[in-house]
Every structure is written in C-alpha cells, then in structure tokens.
C-alpha cells in the first residue's frame, strides 16, 4: 500500500497568500455575500488577511482535522468575527458565507497546482471543502452561543425587573409576583422584601401571586419561608391573588397555609392591611369604612393616587 499523498493546501496557502486575499476580497465584494452597508471594506480586508494568516499557520499541521492546539487561534478569530458581525446585524448565514466564500479562490489555486492530476485534485478539494465547511459551521455555533449568552443575560435582567417591592401605603408593602418562581428568583424576591421591610419599617407585606401560573410544593415552600422570615422581622404577610384553580391545587397537594392569611384579591388584602394598621379610608365627604363593599372602588382610587414609588433593589 502506498502512503496517502500529502495535501498541498498548506503549500498553496503559503505561496499564494497575497493572491488568495485579493481573489477572496473580489469574490466577496462582487457577490452578495457581504452587505457592504454593514461593514467597511478595510475592516473586511483586515479580517480576511488575519484569517488567511492564521489558516496558513494552522494548516502546517494537519488540514484534515481541527483538533490540535494550532487551530485555537483561528477558532478564536472566528469567534471574535462572529461576535462583531452579530452586533453589526449579520445573519448566521451571512457570517458562515464569509468562510464559505473562500472556497472558490482556494479551489481555483488547487486546480492550477494539480493540473491534470485528477486524483490529487479531488483529494485536496475534498480536504479543502471539509475544512471550510467545518470552519463555517463553527461560526454558526458561535452565533448560537452569542444568542444564548444574550438570553442568559436577559433572564438575569428579568429576574431583577420582575421583583419590585411597592410601598402602597404607610407601613404596607406589596410584592406583585409575576411568572415562574424558581429558587434563584425567589431568593432575590425574598431578599428584596426583607430589606424593604427594614428600610420602611412596614408591619404588613402583601405578596400577590395573581401572576404566578402555578403553585407547586416548591413555590409553596418558598412562599412559606418568605412569610416565616418576614414574621421573624416583625412583619405579617398576606398572600393574595389566589385564583380558584390554584386554591384547588394547593388543597390537593396538601400544602398547609393555615398559618398564613390568604385572600383572593389584592384589594381584599389591602382592606385587611388597613384594618390592622388602623386606617379607615373615606370616599368623598361621607364616612364609610374600608371593608364595606360599596367603597372598594373608592379605596382603590385613593390608594392609586397616593401610591409610593416602585423600587428595583
């Protein structure tokens, strides 16, 4: 058996680096591969030149696999290019095309080099296409990775955004919870609430779970812990916004909320809070108590008009 013929890709990259760069640039600028409105030609030239340089160095080893450490720098460059292009508004396909568009210039040179040696040519065309395909796919992977990073960051932002503690009345805090309560978020919620209890000296905190889609045992446990911690600090919690389907589910789960004051709506909870803190709210000139049904709208209007600021802690 004869040894596999040696690939001439490295040799070609070495010899024709300048020509390849020229051809490749022409290829990209005449084709539709590069939206020239998104990046300058000089920037593209720098990226291409750097890519060629690193590819030349990396291909001194083996061009058939990209596992060696000599490929690290090229991969890092692609990662950087992908990142900057994603920010410039390139699609993943456009970024991958940056790599794929190098095929034609490289293939042309290979054809020249091999002349009539069809076996050698087809071998190296295969090597080249595999190599560039892999590099192109890598940019897609980096693109995806970039998106995932964005998602993680947004999740973190959302976590802070969605846990505002509102001072709705003198001595009464409200915490409207929205969305899924996982452990991490609940931690943030709990800390915010406890801190605000200290800051405002509030005696009552209303935790409203209208916006929480389901209450399973983990959510229930988080709520109970929050209530217990608040109680240790001298504040009573009222859990409001318990919808019928949630109430039924909690009963079936067997979660014991006996020690917690619960209400169906936030306004019910507010009425209790007013009673406990000794406030009565009147509508217009008449004197009616907060808890009577007829004044509920009046209460809400007044509360809204004097509401304290929302804080993101």
């Amino acid at each position, binding site marked *: 058996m004869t040894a596999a013929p040696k690939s001439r890709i490295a040799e070609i990259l070495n010899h024709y680096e300048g020509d390849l760069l020229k051809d490749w640039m022409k290829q990209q600028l005449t084709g539709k591969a590069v939206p020239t409105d998104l990046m300058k030609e000089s920037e593209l030239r720098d990226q291409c030149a750097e890519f060629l340089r690193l590819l030349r160095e990396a291909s001194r080893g083996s061009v058939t696999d990209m596992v060696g450490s000599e490929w690290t720098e090229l991969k890092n460059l692609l990662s950087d290019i992908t990142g900057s292009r994603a920010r410039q508004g390139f699609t993943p396909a456009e970024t991958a095309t940056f790599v794929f568009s190098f095929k034609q210039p490289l293939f042309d040179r290979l054809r020249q080099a091999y002349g009539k040696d069809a076996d050698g040519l087809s071998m190296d065309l295969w090597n080249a296409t595999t190599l560039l395909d892999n590099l192109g796919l890598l940019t897609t992977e980096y693109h995806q990775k970039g998106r995932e990073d964005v998602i993680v960051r947004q999740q973190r932002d959302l976590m802070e955004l969605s846990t505002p503690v509102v001072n709705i009345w003198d001595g009464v805090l409200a915490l409207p919870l929205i969305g899924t309560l996982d452990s991490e978020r609940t931690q943030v919620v709990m800390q915010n609430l406890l801190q605000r209890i200290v800051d405002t000296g509030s005696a009552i905190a209303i935790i409203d779970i209208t916006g929480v889609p389901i209450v*399973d045992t983990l959510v229930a446990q988080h709520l109970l812990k929050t209530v217990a911690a608040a109680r240790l600090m001298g504040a009573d919690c009222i859990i409001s916004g318990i919808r019928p389907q949630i109430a039924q589910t909690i009963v*079936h789960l067997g979660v014991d909320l006996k020690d917690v004051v619960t209400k169906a709506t936030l306004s019910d909870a507010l009425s209790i809070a007013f009673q406990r803190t000794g406030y009565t709210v009147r509508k217009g000139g008449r004197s009616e108590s907060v808890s009577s049904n007829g004044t509920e709208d009046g209460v809400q209007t007044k509360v809204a008009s004097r509401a304290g600021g929302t804080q993101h802690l």
Partner: protein
Amino acid sequence: MPLSVTESLALRSSEDVVRMRQWVRARAVGIGFSLVDQTKIVTAASELGRNILEHGGGEGHVYLDLPTHNSKIGIQLTFEDKGPGIADIEQALKDGFTTGGGLGLGLGGARRLVNQFEIASRPGEGTRITITRWKGP
C-alpha cells in the same frame, strides 16, 4: 392520527422543567382541559419533573401521550430516570416524608392531582412514574 404520537422531552435543568410545564399546558389546552384540570396536571408534572432533578440522578425524560378511554381523552405523562431509585415507595408517598429538604408533599400531592398514578422503581436502576388525568365532565 397525530394525537396518538408520543412526544418526549429531556429534563436536565430547572429551565427544562419550565419548558415542560408550558408544553404540558399547551397540550392540555389543545384537548380542551378546563383551567382547573390544566393547573392540576401541570402542577403534578412540575412536582415529578423536579423530583427527577433532585432525586433521580439529575436527568431523565418525560413522555407525553394523549390516550382515549371510553370516549374520554386524557393526558398521560411518563417520567423516567436512571437515578438511585426509591427503596420504600410506601414511605416516599407518605406526606411529609422528604430526603431533600422539601415539604415532602410532591409525590403524594402529584398522586392526588391526577386520576391514575403508577410508580415503578428499583434501587440502583431508576424510577418510572406514569400519571394520567382525564378530561373532566
């Protein structure tokens, strides 16, 4: 019939549990479950999904079927893991029993939230739990 195709989802992180809940809810809405029935099956799924993460070796799969029985349609979910298994199923189903610091209501609670509940487990081999909730009258 597209309804009879089993779908599956891998459970590896708490994000997967959230995704599973949305998935189960979407299917429940799709076959016309009432809000209460939706909430019950989704809550039960949430308990069992989280059990896999906490006690089932950290990863597993959930399979979803939409079986029909006596012209009633339902949702059937099968949770499988290859974790340490449950040595004493009776005890695990008892309210208040926990090995993980939770409330100890998950397994028993999930059983009460559905119409059918089957559990098979062997120490060292893993656990399989199948729950079914039929569409209410």
